[in-house]
């Protein structure tokens, strides 16, 4: 078992009072497995992803990564966890605007001390980023930016890749191409993938689908 989430609850304060987003979620992920997390808006998909990625802490419940409880880690521990065990891909790409494409791609791998030039070259080649290496994020289209974000995540070869609607800002054709590439590369790198998506069509491409509704996994 790579990732195991057990009885996870999470609530947020809103103007109207506390809102419980997750109401006891259980989810397991095997190494190199790809899982699609689907559900309506507000069902708690992104929150679950953030908890799995160590970006946030659950109110109750446990998160185990390779058998280690990461849900109770302090700020420093979670920073280390994100650096070395998780790779995140977001809908808004969230590239580092001050770095060019080449530096963006190698950034996480270097941080995690897993920089591998050969693997990075392969990624660049597969993602078709060679002509864009000296460009800055603001000079790229949405699809190009997302390819860079995927490259950045996979360059570090994290055991777990968490992707939050990575194709949400892209048109259908580009979205298909980007996801295919992502699946192929994660498989190649031996990474597990937990992907949040609204699209059933895209979810069908993954090993398994999980449906989240009202803060609970229903299928």
């Amino acid at each position, binding site marked *: 078992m790579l990732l195991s989430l057990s009885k996870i609850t999470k609530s947020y304060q809103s103007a109207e009072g506390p809102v419980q987003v997750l109401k006891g979620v259980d989810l397991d992920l095997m190494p190199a497995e790809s899982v699609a997390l689907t559900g309506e808006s507000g069902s708690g998909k992104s929150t679950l992803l953030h908890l799995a990625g160590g970006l*946030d802490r659950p109110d109750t419940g446990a998160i185990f990564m390779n058998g280690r409880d990461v849900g109770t880690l302090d700020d420093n521990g979670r920073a280390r966890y994100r650096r070395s065990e998780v790779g*995140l891909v977001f*809908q808004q790409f*969230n590239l580092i605007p*001050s770095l060019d494409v080449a*530096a963006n791609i190698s*950034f996480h791998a270097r941080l995690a001390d897993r920089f591998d030039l050969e693997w990075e070259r392969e990624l660049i080649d597969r993602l078709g980023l060679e002509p864009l290496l000296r460009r800055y994020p603001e000079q790229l289209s949405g699809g190009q930016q997302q390819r860079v974000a995927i490259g950045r995540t996979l360059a570090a070869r994290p055991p777990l890749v968490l992707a939050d609607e990575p194709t949400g800002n892209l048109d259908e054709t580009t979205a298909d191409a980007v996801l295919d590439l992502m699946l192929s590369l994660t498989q190649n790198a031996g990474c597990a993938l937990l992907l949040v998506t609204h699209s059933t069509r895209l979810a069908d491409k993954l090993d398994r689908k999980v449906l989240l509704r009202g803060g609970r996994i229903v299928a």
Partner: protein
Amino acid sequence: MNRVAFAALLSHWRHRPLQLATLILGIALATALWSGVQAINAEARASYTRAASILEQNGLAQLLARDGNPIPITVFAKLRRAGWNVSPVIEGDYRFGPARIRLIGIDPLTMPTEGRAIAMSSSPDVVTFIGGQGLLVVSPATAARLKDLTSVPVKVSGDIPDDAAFTDISVADRLLEKGGALSRIVIGPSQRPGLPALADVAPELALQSAGDRPDMARLTDSFHLNLTAFGFLAFVVGLFIVYSATGLSFEQRRATFRTLRSVGISLRSLTAMLIAETLLFAFIAGLFGVVIGYFLASALLPGVAATLSGLYGASVPGSLSLRPEWWLAGMAMALAGTMLSSVQSLWQVRHMPILAAAQPRAWARASAMALRLQSLLGVALLMVAAALAFGGSGLLSGFAVLGSLLLGAALLLPAFLSGALQLAESRSRKAMTVWFWADTRLQLPGLSLALMALLLALAANVGVGTMVSSFRLTFLGWLDQRLAAELYITARSEAEAARLREWLPQHSNAVLPIWNTEGKVLGEQMQIFGVADDRTYRDHWPLLMGTPDVWGQVEKGEGALVNEQLWRSRHIRTGQTITLPEGWAVKVAGVYSDYGNPKGQVIVGLDALVRRYPTIAKLRYGIRVDPSAAPALKREIAEAFGLPDSNIIEQASLKRRSQAVFEQTFAVTGALNVLTLAVAGFAMFTSLLTLSGSRLPQLAPVWAMGVRRRDLAVLEVVRTLALWLATFLVAIPVGLALAWVLLAIVNVEAFGWRLPMMIFPADWLRLAAVALLAALASVFIPVRRLAIVNPADLLRVFANER
């Protein structure tokens, strides 16, 4: 509809109180520093005008001798006989013991009412003024100084400036020993028709029209220009804050502008509303600024008054009165400055297409082209500065060099920093280091205005600090040379002076008379001193240049020394002949430095001086004695002659006093420097605070990849310090260039002396420490915000939903 639209525009500020406070404070600080300086200048100038109108009767036309010599009484008699309504004046400086007072002797019977300064409405007033022992009419402060120093009765009048006394012409004649010779003749405002022309009756006299600018105003022009320049620098630094705040508010409201226009608000109405908003803020902040400026000026004025008194002998009251002209000028500057800072943003709104997308912080993202243009302008300004420095002349040219140098350097700073950061980035290997330099470069456009303001403030500090420290060191060395005598004695009368001359040689190593007269040389009123032939002068007197046998020529009465001010202003060469009063022609044998004296001065041999001007006062002496014996000799003189303590001054005490005057002279400059630095620190703080609002999207990805908030916060501090340090390093050469301009151009033009430039790295370290503290203070709040930022806020950057 427009009211609703205006309310919508203003609602922006309700959600951004800190930004509003920044804008208001920026305008208020800029206005305060400017109007504070103007208040001081207005007060001083009003005081000169008042003094001139009272002491010099400059509201009336006057007659002066063309050759600068006293006017014989016979000339006055000729004018009266010809029917001219004129009144004589005898004036001069007189020492009442240690108190040097300007005596103005008038004839109350012929002096027009406007020239009397004091009301003499009845016969008893006039009788008291001219009768008996006479009367000295003085200010309360002068009356206090004269207590027990004179037997002439003293009357206090609030209308008379300090250190001056009005008296009857006969009393002035007696005390000043003028022998009836007049200083000037005042012409009454009403004259009989058909009088013979003045040129026919008294061709030896020249007419000076009524209302000429007071001498003191002319003399102190450069000082006030210096103050104005500093006030303006602080104002410009303050405007950087305003520019930054208005630019940001306009950019943040682009979407609002678009919406307003799409619902039918015309471009003209929108622009008018934005101008109205800007003016409203400028007005409110300007009021705050003028009030702060008033208190600032009140705090600084005593220092300025002491400076003016120390440098020029000008008497300016230490308290401030409310003058409508500077209130209005302050408000006008606030309005004009704010409009100037907003004009670019307004122009952009005018030219923004109705469907233009909002580009948050596009205003701050200087394009490569803009940076290149800015750098080119910077280089052009530096070239102008260099051309003016080596080819221009005059004080205004000096200030133009200063302005071009500072502005040019400030404009070049962003390009320089960008280049340095790029170099650092290219040399870095580690991912975080590469990111750190790249991210710092990304922040540069948003911080560049604040950094430019910081550069101006730091360079001004380094420049003025170098100038003052160079001046201090030179001045102290010069004082050591010039104040060579161990004791300085002032006799109370000529008889006492004669007894001292007999007594002193047996009790000291040497007696150096300090005798002088006043008169016109090359058309300028100045002092002419006599020096005895003594090794003290040959060994110590600070000569800048001289003929091989300079002291021999002076001793023989064939040569004269001129001070640096006279030498520079009149382009005198050694060997040139100048004519002293009463037609005494002497050759210039040398030039000496004479810091702190705004006027020209001449030194001749003592014997020759006494031969030419036998009536000069012979009251003051410098005494050479073994330094350890000075206190004993002082006691001995006091016992033998009953001289009060204030008439026997030890060298150390005189040096202390001179140094105190020196320090006071630059106290105001120092205060303005600190204030400018404080404003620059505030500009940096506001910029960092503004940027911190847009930092989360830039930092969140790095945080998500496993960098702790604490580490990001530390890096933010390091980034700020790195930028401050880089700016500080640039400020040093700019400051040194500024110091050179001040010492070699501005001082020479303004004061008439040039000082050697010295370098004081320890001062830079002190300034660096102050700047470091200011940097840490400016970054504290934004970084604290980041260090404790709620992870939920960082998550919001990624979250599309929950």
